[in-house]
């Protein structure tokens, strides 16, 4: 009898908890990022942020050590690649200085929006995102610093993603490798494409949007930038990625293009949020 009662009570508890969870899911899914549950999430995130920041600072050396231990082989390879790049960059630096001065003059004359100086807010990452089903990071500033949903986020190298949700003192940035992320990119021959995230460890996929023009001829190693067309989510000329593969399937008029992000998303610490919204 006692066993029966215990078993019955367990079923009752499980049923109540499942119903509670389903109720939460339903309410939150229907509120579309607004409402009481989103507020609670925002408040928890705000309240947790200082603690998270402190813990992150304390545990970062351990994390770096473990990351190094887990990725030793790839780090050695990366180190060698970086050394080669430094040599190449040193050779280019003198030439680049002259070209930069000339470019600045030309761009200033054209009054391009990207060069006209979009204000940015410097932010620090307090949570690198430990979920395996969403590619996002949490930053240490929110609406009180002027950050709003949809704003582009960049780092040294180029585009990182965009602000997905924001609370008073924190915000979540969806990374460009997330399957829900897409950005318009400029392709050779006045073509326009959409770079779409595929997954954390996979390169992005580019689909060609313009079909009236001749298919673009792209080369592996070429860098693509945001198109910045009307109603685009990003201003023009932000570097997005480098083409790592390009192939034309039989019967397909347009090439399949894959793009590796220029920013190393695994090594992010500080970011810049652009105070920009679509026109």
């Amino acid at each position, binding site marked *: 009898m006692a066993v029966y009662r215990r078993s019955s009570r367990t079923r009752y508890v499980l049923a109540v*908890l499942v119903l509670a969870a389903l109720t939460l899911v*339903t309410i*939150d899914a229907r509120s579309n990022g607004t409402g009481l549950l989103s507020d609670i999430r925002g408040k928890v995130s705000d309240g947790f942020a200082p603690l*998270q920041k402190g813990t992150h600072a304390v545990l970062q050396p351990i994390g770096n050590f473990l990351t190094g231990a887990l990725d030793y082989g790839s780090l050695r390879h990366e180190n060698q690649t970086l050394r080669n790049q430094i040599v190449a960059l040193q050779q280019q630096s003198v030439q680049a200085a002259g070209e930069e001065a000339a470019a600045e003059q030309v761009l200033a004359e054209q009054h391009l929006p990207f060069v006209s100086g979009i204000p940015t807010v410097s932010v620090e990452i307090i949570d690198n995102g430990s979920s395996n089903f969403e590619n996002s990071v949490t930053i240490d500033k929110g609406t009180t610093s002027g950050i709003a949903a949809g704003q582009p986020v960049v780092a040294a190298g180029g585009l990182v993603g965009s602000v997905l949700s924001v609370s008073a003192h924190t915000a979540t940035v969806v990374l460009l490798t997330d399957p829900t992320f897409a950005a318009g990119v400029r392709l050779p021959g006045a073509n326009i494409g959409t770079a779409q995230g595929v997954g954390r460890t996979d390169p992005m996929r580019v689909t060609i949007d313009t079909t009236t023009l001749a298919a673009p001829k792209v080369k592996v190693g070429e860098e693509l930038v945001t198109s910045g067309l009307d109603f685009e989510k990003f201003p023009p000329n932000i570097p997005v990625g480098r083409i790592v593969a390009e192939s034309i399937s039989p019967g397909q008029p347009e090439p399949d293009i894959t793009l590796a992000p220029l920013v190393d998303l*695994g090594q992010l610490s500080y970011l810049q949020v652009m105070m920009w919204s679509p026109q």
Partner: protein
Amino acid sequence: MSPHVLARLRIGLLLFVAILVQTSLGSDLRVAGVAPDLMVLVTICAGMAGGAEAGAWVGFWAGLAADMFLTSTPLGLSALTYCLVGAAIGALRAGVLQEHRALIPAAAFVGTAAAALLFVALGDVLGQSQLLDAGRSWLIRVALIEALWSTVLSIPVSIIYAWAARGSAGSERVGPPRGGMISTERLPAR
């Protein structure tokens, strides 16, 4: 304060520390892009130590804590998943699983892989089809690597959980931990 209340407070503290470590250090432990999931591991340990009811309760709160730091899935999806996994592990522990030295690592492996698959399956049913966008190979990779992480971490986490849960109703039913492992006594058959 009664031992039951103290045990609940310790389990609450354990969940708090677990989510803090998960959000601060979890990303640095990625192998092939996959991070461990401490919250599901604590849930499995709760099911193993305290039975189905404890597994369900701890799973619900562990999942809810995890949901607070997710943005693309609705609040409650992890709570639902972990609650079911905790209850299932607890029920299996009580009625089916035979005592064995490798029981906890094995349960951690199976439970974690099941939780990853169940999370995506329930999400898809509840309208979160974006969870499938990364593809089947990614899902299998996540399930396997998360499960391996849980297997590696299962013994220390089970010891910590057994310490936190001592004096609770569930731990009394299963029995105290012996030599760092969960008791060899089994719950009465249902």
